[in-house]
C-alpha cells in the first residue's frame, strides 16, 4: 500500500517536472550541418535512392563493420558456452509428431521467406531494408524449418563457410575502395560497379554487393545461434 502510493507520487512528481520541458519544446525546423550535407550531396555521391542506406553503408561504414563484429562475437560466445551441454543431444532430442499441415506449408513457405529475405537485402538501396533485416528474415525461415522438421540439422560447415567468406568479402570490398580509387575505406566507389541510374536495381555502386554479403553474414550468424540453442535442448 505504502510502497505503491509512493511510486504513484513519485511518478506524478516526475510528470510535474517534465511537463514544462514538454511544453517548451519546439523541434528545430532546420537540420544540423551533417544532416544537411547528407541531404544535399548524398544522392550524387553515392547514387543510392534510400539515403539511410548511403549513410549506413558508405558514410558510416565503419560503424556497420563494428556492429557486424559485435554480432559475430555474441554468436561465438553463445556457441562456446552452449557447446558444453551438447554432448548427449543425439539420443535426447526425441522425435515428436508434427502435423501434416505444418510440414506441407513449410515446404511452400520457407523458399518464399528466403526469397523475400534476399529481396530485402538486394533492394537495400531502394527500400527500407538492408543486410540486418534480410538476415533476420532468413533466420526466421530457419526457425520455421526447425519447428516443422524435428530431424532437421544445420550443417555447421556450410554456415561457417558462408559466414567467414562473406565477412572477408565485405572487408575486401571496403579495402578495394580505399586502395584502387583512392577514396575512403568502405566507400562504394569501386571499379566495375557503376552508379547507374538512381532508382534502378543496378545502381549505387557497391552498396547492393556489400549489403548482399552483409545479409548472408547476419543470416548465417543468427541461424548458427538458433541451431546451437536447439541442439542444446534436452528432452525431459
Amino acid at each position: 500500500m505504502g510502497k505503491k502510493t509512493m511510486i504513484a507520487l513519485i511518478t506524478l512528481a516526475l510528470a510535474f517536472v517534465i511537463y514544462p520541458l514538454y511544453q517548451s519544446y519546439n523541434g528545430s525546423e532546420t537540420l544540423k550541418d551533417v544532416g544537411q550535407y547528407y541531404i544535399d550531396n548524398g544522392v550524387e555521391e553515392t547514387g543510392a535512392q534510400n539515403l539511410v542506406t548511403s549513410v549506413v553503408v558508405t558514410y558510416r561504414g565503419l560503424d556497420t563493420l563494428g556492429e557486424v563484429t559485435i554480432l559475430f562475437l555474441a554468436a561465438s560466445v553463445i556457441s562456446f558456452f552452449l557447446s558444453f551441454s551438447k554432448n548427449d543431444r543425439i539420443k535426447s532430442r526425441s522425435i515428436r509428431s508434427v502435423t501434416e499441415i505444418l510440414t506441407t506449408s513449410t515446404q511452400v513457405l520457407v523458399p518464399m521467406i528466403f526469397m523475400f529475405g534476399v529481396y530485402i537485402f538486394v533492394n537495400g538501396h531502394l527500400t527500407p531494408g538492408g543486410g540486418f533485416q534480410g538476415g533476420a528474415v532468413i533466420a526466421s525461415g530457419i526457425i520455421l524449418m526447425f519447428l516443422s522438421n524435428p530431424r532437421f540439422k544445420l550443417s555447421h560447415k556450410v554456415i561457417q563457410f558462408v559466414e567467414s567468406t562473406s565477412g572477408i568479402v565485405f572487408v575486401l570490398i571496403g579495402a578495394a575502395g580505399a586502395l584502387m580509387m583512392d577514396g575512403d575505406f568502405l566507400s562504394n566507389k569501386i571499379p566495375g560497379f557503376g552508379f547507374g541510374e538512381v532508382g534502378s536495381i543496378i545502381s549505387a555502386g557497391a552498396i547492393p554487393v556489400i549489403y548482399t554479403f552483409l545479409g548472408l553474414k547476419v543470416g548465417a550468424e543468427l541461424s548458427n545461434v538458433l541451431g546451437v540453442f536447439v541442439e542444446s535442448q534436452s528432452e525431459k
Partner: protein
Amino acid sequence: MLIVLASVLGIASMVGAYFAIHSKSLTVAIIATGVVSLISSILFLLLAAPDVAMTEASIGSALTSAIFFLTLNKIRQTNG
C-alpha cells in the same frame, strides 16, 4: 487525427509492457513482449522511420520470442 492513432497505440503498448513486467507467468510475459514490439513498429512507421520499423518487425516478430522460449526451456530443464 494521427495523434489519436498514436495515443491508442501508446495505450496498447503500455498495457503490453505492464503485462510483460508484472505477469506471473513467463510465457504470458514473452507474448506481451511481442505485442509491444508490433506496436512500436507501427509507431516507428508513424514517425516516418521505415528502416527502424522494418528492423523491429523482422527481429521482434519471430526471432526474439523464439530465442526467449529456447532459453526459458533450457532454464527449466536445468533447474529440474
